[in-house]
């Protein structure tokens, strides 16, 4: 749900954008073509205006020609004759031009034909009169009736034509005006549409922008908090490390100093036996035996505690061939192996970064346990298998011993806990605690696999690299 909602909204916004853009495009296209047409119409209007002026010029030329001719008839001055000829030429030139303009404007040339006939006739009449005057060198009839008629016809025709063209121009002007208004309207509408579109996008996108800004802010907050938490965790780790060191030191000091009074007790018991032993009755001897057993056990416990506190204390980690660790452990266990005729199979192990003395002790403890907790009369069969994955080796030690009951499972890793009745199996109940500590020193875990029909399997992991150095470097950086 949550993921599809923004998607749908985006689709909607996209559609609106496309529609808006299309409308704008159409409007601009219409405005553009409109403007092009306005240009064409304006050209036509210009041509029409030129035609109208030409027509006026024709009339002026005809009239000038006529008046110059008349002046020549009266004065027979050749200057007037030249002016007449010039006017005639002008009239015909303008007429040709007007014809061309009509062709350009694609108008019927019927009326111009009529005009040409009239003008030609007119000038023919005038030419005739000039010729006769020059021949007789006398004044001819000034204005004939037919000639006056011709002039009227020419004037009328030209006026009619001019009128038509003027109307045409007025009409074109109106059209241009209308089209200008249309363009302006379209542009104005486009402007509104554009604003509308922008507003739409703004209303649609503003919440998104807000959301993004908020989520960025939230993420920044989270990053800050995570950084604070990390710093706190680092401080905690430091504190824990120093606490651990303190504890180790405490265990060392405690176990060391506990030995002193213990030694005093056993020393004086010894002295007592030496000097007063001959006076002891049976009861006294029993008491002394109990005291001796207790001090012996306590000495052993303290020694183990001391050793426990010293695991990984003295030496730096180094390259360790686990096969050598197992080999050393087997050498140390030789007496029990021979006594029990245990059969031990070890799969080839990898090298790791670790503490050699502790690793040997680890194998010695686990293999020793496997042999020790096999019922009398059964030959211990022990296999050591392993697999390496992601800088971690997982090692299984499987035996065919007495196994570990459900009740005992929770207790076996506790220090000094023994799950068998006193005397059934020898030991201090510290072996597995040692093992776990050594494994933790190598960033690993010790577990007991679910009970099988016979025997038990201890599984533990060891890091093939020691990360401690790197972590330390990070902290000091």
């Amino acid at each position, binding site marked *: 749900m949550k993921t599809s909602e923004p998607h749908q909204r985006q689709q909607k916004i996209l559609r609106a954008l496309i529609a808006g853009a299309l409308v704008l495009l159409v409007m601009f296209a219409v405005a553009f073509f409109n403007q092009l047409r306005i240009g064409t119409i304006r050209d036509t209007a210009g041509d029409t205006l030129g035609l109208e002026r030409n027509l006026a010029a024709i009339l002026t030329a005809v009239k000038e020609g006529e008046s110059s001719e008349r002046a020549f008839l009266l004065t027979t001055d050749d200057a007037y004759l030249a002016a007449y000829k010039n006017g005639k030429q002008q009239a015909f030139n303008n007429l040709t031009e007007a014809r061309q303009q009509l062709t350009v404007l694609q108008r019927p040339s019927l009326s111009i034909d009529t005009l040409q006939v009239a003008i030609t006739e007119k000038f023919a009449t005038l030419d005739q009169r000039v010729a006769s005057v020059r021949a007789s060198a006398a004044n001819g009839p000034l204005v004939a009736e037919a000639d006056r008629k011709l002039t009227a016809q020419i004037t009328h025709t030209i006026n009619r034509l001019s009128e038509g063209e003027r109307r045409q121009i007025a009409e074109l002007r109106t059209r241009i005006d209308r089209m200008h208004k249309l363009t302006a309207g379209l542009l104005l509408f486009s402007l509104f549409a554009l604003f509308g579109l922008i507003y739409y996008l703004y209303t649609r996108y503003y919440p998104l922008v807000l959301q993004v800004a908020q989520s960025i802010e939230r993420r920044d907050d989270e990053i800050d908090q995570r950084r604070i938490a990390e710093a706190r965790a680092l401080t905690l780790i430091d504190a824990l490390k120093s606490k651990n060191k303190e504890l180790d030191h405490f265990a060392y000091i405690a176990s060391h100093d506990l030995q002193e009074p213990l030694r*005093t007790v056993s020393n*004086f018991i*010894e002295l007592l036996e030496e000097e007063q032993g001959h006076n002891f009755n049976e009861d006294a001897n029993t008491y002394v035996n109990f005291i001796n057993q207790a001090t012996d056990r306590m000495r052993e416990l303290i020694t183990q505690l001391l050793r426990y506190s010293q695991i990984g204390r003295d030496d730096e980690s180094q390259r360790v061939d686990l096969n050598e660790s197992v080999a050393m452990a087997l050498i140390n266990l030789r007496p029990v192996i021979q006594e029990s005729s245990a059969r031990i199979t070890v799969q080839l192990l990898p090298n790791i970064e670790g503490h050699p003395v502790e690793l040997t002790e680890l194998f010695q403890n686990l293999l020793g346990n496997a042999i020790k907790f096999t019922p009398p009369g059964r030959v211990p069969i022990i296999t050591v298998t392993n697999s390496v994955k992601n800088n971690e080796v997982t090692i299984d030690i499987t035996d065919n011993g007495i196994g570990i009951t459900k009740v005992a499972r929770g207790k076996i890793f506790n220090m000094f806990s023994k799950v068998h009745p006193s005397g059934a199996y020898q030991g201090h109940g510290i072996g597995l605690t040692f093992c776990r500590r050594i494994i933790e020193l190598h960033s690993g875990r010790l577990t007991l696999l679910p009970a099988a029909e016979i025997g038990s399997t201890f599984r533990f992991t060891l890091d093939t690299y020691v990360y401690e150095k790197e972590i330390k470097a990070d902290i000091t950086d």
Partner: protein
Amino acid sequence: MKKKLKQILLIDDSVSDNFIHARRIRNVNVTESIITKKNGREALDYLTEELPNNQYQQPELIFLDINMPVMNGWEFLDEYDKLMDKQKALVVLAMLTTSTAESDKEKAKNYGHLSTFLEKPLKEEDLLSIIQKHFPRLMEEE
């Protein structure tokens, strides 16, 4: 009557250890007197204390504990080295506690006059074998 040592010096902060050691030394009956000092400083003061006739106490045998307050066994040995010969004993023996035995034995290699290490508490057999080793003439005349 057999010949005895003139004096044995015990340097140890543990009252109970001193008690036991003194008692056992007395039991084997090899010395006329047993002196106990609680730390290296007291022992040095005792050894350097001048007697009439330009004489010094000069016990024949010293049993030295290592782990002591004020001045421990090692510090004592450093100072002892600087003493005049007539202030020194004939034999100095270090007594070690089991817990620190290994590291102490390593360290003791730096001290020439310590070749023997004893583990506390001393037994009567230990005492007899020490006398036999360092003072054979006492045993002969017995």
